[in-house]
């Protein structure tokens, strides 16, 4: 059996890192005619009669690029026609550390009863499209809830496959929709809920988390109000300093939207360079400028798509009672003015 990931000068079969290409030196192939090799050379899973799909090249060696990388903990065989000519396995990487659940958002211990979104942040790319097997929501100590999450295939991962977005079933949260009427809202007020992430969930590299992880929240009253930057409390810095501009959002907002929704600008719209830090379970932010503050008029520009924990954004609540509230005119941004040194 050949080893995996040997250097190119190796004298046997070797597999490139990430398991994307197989190389077999020509002297190990009992056929010298490249055309015949191209026709007869096949790779199969051990015990399978199916040829693996991929691109084959015969030049200095035989190289085979499978359509998807070879799978960890699997054994493969190389065939020339009816003759098995070599085999290899893709072992677990013993040196790799297991993935960790780094954070669960919302981070606040209290959430509105109409909580919409949960984010799970992992330390490395995870195996996709299996979350329904490894995530559960437990009410109180032991009451596992069913059909609370929206089943989505493919799942909503960030580009690196390290952050997964989970929605509580919006059909159950929205008032008077049929799922809401038949099954009730997913959460009830003044209860404790624990999200459990199962220890057996594996990374894309097939290593399990190893121990159960999660977060616990207590539900408070329904949040049906759109976040309003006009109500945020600002602590304005002194001119000539690099003191932070402190923004008290008065409630926890969506962690990932928050990080990209707020910018500080001069009243003429010119952006103030600096960095925004989010603290206090996503209920406060701190903006520190790169240069010292000049006296003058400023604005916070807030993207209207910023949401609170219940999915209300700056333009509209998650579900609007049309008998009592009017629709706002949708805007791309909302601004909040403030002055420094005046």
């Amino acid at each position, binding site marked *: 059996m050949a080893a995996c990931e040997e250097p190119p000068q190796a004298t046997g079969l070797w597999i490139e890192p990430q398991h994307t290409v197989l190389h077999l030196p020509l002297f190990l192939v009992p056929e010298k005619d490249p055309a015949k090799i191209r026709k007869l050379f096949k790779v199969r899973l051990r015990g399978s009669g*199916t040829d693996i799909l991929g691109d084959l090249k015969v030049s200095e060696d035989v190289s085979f690029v499978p359509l998807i990388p070879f799978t960890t903990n699997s054994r493969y065989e190389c065939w020339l026609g009816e003759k098995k000519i070599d085999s290899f396995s893709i072992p677990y990487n013993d040196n790799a550390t297991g993935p960790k659940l780094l954070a669960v958002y919302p981070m606040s211990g209290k959430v509105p009863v109409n909580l919409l979104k949960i984010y799970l942040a992992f330390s490395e790319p995870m195996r996709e499209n299996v979350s329904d097997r490894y995530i559960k929501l437990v009410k109180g100590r032991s009451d596992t809830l069913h059909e609370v999450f929206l089943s989505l295939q493919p799942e909503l991962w960030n580009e690196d496959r390290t952050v997964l977005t989970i929605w509580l079933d919006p*059909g159950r949260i929205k008032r008077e929709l049929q799922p809401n009427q038949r099954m009730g809202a997913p959460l009830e007020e003044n209860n404790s809920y624990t999200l459990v992430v199962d220890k057996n969930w594996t990374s894309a590299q097939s290593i399990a988390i190893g121990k159960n992880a999660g977060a616990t929240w207590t539900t408070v009253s329904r949040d049906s109000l759109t976040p309003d930057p006009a109500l945020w409390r600002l602590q304005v810095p002194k001119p000539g300093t690099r003191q932070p501009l402190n923004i008290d959002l008065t409630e926890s907002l969506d962690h990932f939207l928050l990080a990209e929704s707020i910018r500080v600008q001069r009243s003429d719209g010119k952006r103030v360079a600096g960095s925004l830090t989010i603290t206090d379970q996503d209920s406060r932010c701190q903006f520190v400028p790169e240069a010292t503050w000049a006296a003058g008029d400023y604005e916070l520009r807030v993207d209207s798509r910023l949401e609170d924990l219940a999915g209300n954004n700056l333009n509209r609540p998650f579900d609007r009672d049309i008998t009592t509230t009017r629709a706002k005119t949708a805007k791309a941004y909302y601004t909040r003015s403030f002055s420094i040194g005046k």
Partner: protein
Amino acid sequence: MKQKYFFIALLLAGVALAATRPFSGNPNGFIKGTPEIRSISALSFSKDGILFIGDSRSASVFAVETNDKKTDWAEDIAVAGIDQKIADALGTQKANITITDMAVNPVSKKLYIAVQNSDGTPALLKAGNKGIEAVSLKDVHFSSIALNDVYAEDAKDARGRPLRISTISDLAFDNGKLYVSGLSNKEFSSTFRSIPFPFSDQQDQASLEMYHASHGRYETTSPIRTFAISKINGKDYLIASYTCTPLVLYPLDELKAGMHVKGRTVAEMGAGNTPIDMTTITKGGETYLIMGNTARPVSEVNYKSIASFEGTLTQQVAGKAGTPYIEVPSLTKVLQMDKLDAHKVVIMQKKENGDIDLLTSTNEAL
């Protein structure tokens, strides 16, 4: 030596440029080359066999010439355990793969299946009774368009990538336009774009905020999960199914950017259930919308009854009511569907034992 290397590098660059050069006699504005497709979330064909690939990871749609041979008649497709067969052909276990979409090329009647490996690698396959083959995307004629985020053009991360990346939930091509619905991993809103094809620099794509009010009282917005474009009484409509289950009808000509667009909820498809795929078929001279559902059998609505349903935003759609529909009891847990030809539909169905089968049904049997 350095100079020599530089020369080789230039030569290689020249090859790369040549490989992506536009060619003549090319009404679709295609170039020849290898599209950098990073994921395949959705597939759709135009009537003349151009394959549209929705790539969520690069937030782009690719249009690819397939060069399939024309056929008028389609063989019934019946493959038991298609998930196992795909896994075998990819050299992995079936637990590692997810079938993300399937679509039939109306020119060749060939079934295309998009698959994602657990590490995120996409694969595009053609499947039939005789087996599974890879669809090569090397040196093909193609074009692509990035789904620009019209709201937050300056929201980019340190590497200059847009921060908001939508998952493309469905694609459809109709009458010179490509329609794309998206789910965001961040905000809970409906993005629906209409993009003229051939793709051009002058994009006319619009991100739309669309609302529906099912019960006369609460107006909501929600991301579209799957949709169909259809003519009802001579007018083009978008029929959208949302993550919160209602089936909503919008006149296409009213969908304009920046407007508060209200749709008409025509049905709710049952508690704990979401339509996951839909297509339009004709039988007995009438047109029907058929839907695969997560928790219910395939349901079928006559377009006539959608057109005549006068329930408006002020009326409650009670239970499974609203527009009447019928269910096909044998077809539960249908994951994917598409028209195989004018008379047949190919269906991907999850069986009781968890296996996934491909089967063919005549329109009449639905």
